[in-house]
C-alpha cells in the first residue's frame, strides 16, 4: 500500500512524458505503464469550449480515494490522475490517468477503473459554450457512465 499516488486539479495542460517519467523513472519493477487522456470533442463543430467547474478540496480527495482503491484492487505500483478546470477548447486535454504495474492487464484495468469512477464520483461539472456565443447549458450525466462504473461491482 506504499504505491505512490499523485493527484492534481489544475487549469494548465499536463505533459504526458513528464508524468510518465515521474512515475517510472529509476524503477526496474514496472513492466507496464498505461495512460488515458480524455479530450474535449466537438464532432458537430458547434462548440466553442467546455467550462469545467469543480469542488476544490473534495475533487482532489475523491480522485485520490479512487486511485488508492485501484492500487489496492489491481496491485498497481503507482497511479497519477490530473484533471483540468476552466475553459477547455475542442481538441484540448481534460483529464489524464497514468497507471504502472508489473504486468500489463493490471495497468489497463487500473486506468479503466479510475476513469469509470472519476466520471461518476469526482465533483466536476461541464458547461457548454457554443460557437454562436450562447451557452449550450450543463452537460447531462450519462446512464452509460453509471453502467460502466457498475460493472466493477457486479463481477
Amino acid at each position, binding site marked *: 500500500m506504499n504505491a505512490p499516488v499523485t493527484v492534481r486539479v489544475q487549469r494548465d495542460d499536463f505533459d504526458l512524458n513528464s508524468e510518465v517519467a515521474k512515475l517510472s523513472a529509476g524503477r526496474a519493477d514496472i513492466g507496464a505503464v498505461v495512460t488515458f487522456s480524455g479530450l474535449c470533442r466537438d464532432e458537430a463543430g458547434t462548440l466553442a469550449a467546455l467550462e469545467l467547474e*469543480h*469542488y476544490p478540496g*473534495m475533487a482532489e*480527495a475523491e480522485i485520490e480515494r479512487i486511485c488508492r482503491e485501484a492500487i489496492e484492487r489491481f496491485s498497481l505500483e503507482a497511479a497519477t490522475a490530473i484533471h483540468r478546470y476552466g475553459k477547455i477548447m475542442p481538441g484540448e486535454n481534460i483529464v489524464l490517468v497514468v497507471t504502472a504495474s508489473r504486468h500489463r492487464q493490471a495497468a489497463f484495468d487500473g486506468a479503466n477503473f479510475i*476513469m469509470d469512477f472519476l466520471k461518476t464520483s469526482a*465533483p466536476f461539472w461541464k458547461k457548454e459554450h457554443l460557437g454562436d456565443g450562447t451557452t449550450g447549458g450543463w452537460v447531462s450525466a450519462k446512464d452509460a457512465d453509471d453502467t460502466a462504473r457498475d460493472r466493477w461491482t457486479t463481477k
Partner: protein
Amino acid sequence: MSTVNLVYFSWVRERIGKGEETLDLPAGVVTIADLLRHLKTLGEEYEAALEHENVIRAAINQEHVDHKEPIAGAREIALFPPMTGG
C-alpha cells in the same frame, strides 16, 4: 438551532444564485433529506434548484453521502447535480 456552511455547484449554484452561504437550521433538520425540504421553504430560487430531489447529490465534509445521512457535526455540506467530469 445549528449553523452550517453550505456550498452549491453547477446548476444548483446557478439556480439558487450563490455559491455558498451560512445558515441557521431549525432543530427538526436532522438529515440531508430534511435539509433539502427546509431549503425549499426559503424561496422560489431554492424550489427551482431542488425541485427534483432525487437527482440532487450531497457531500458532508467533502465526502459523498445519501439523503438519509444525519448532518450533525457537519462543517460543510455541498449540494450539486450528478457529476460530469472526466
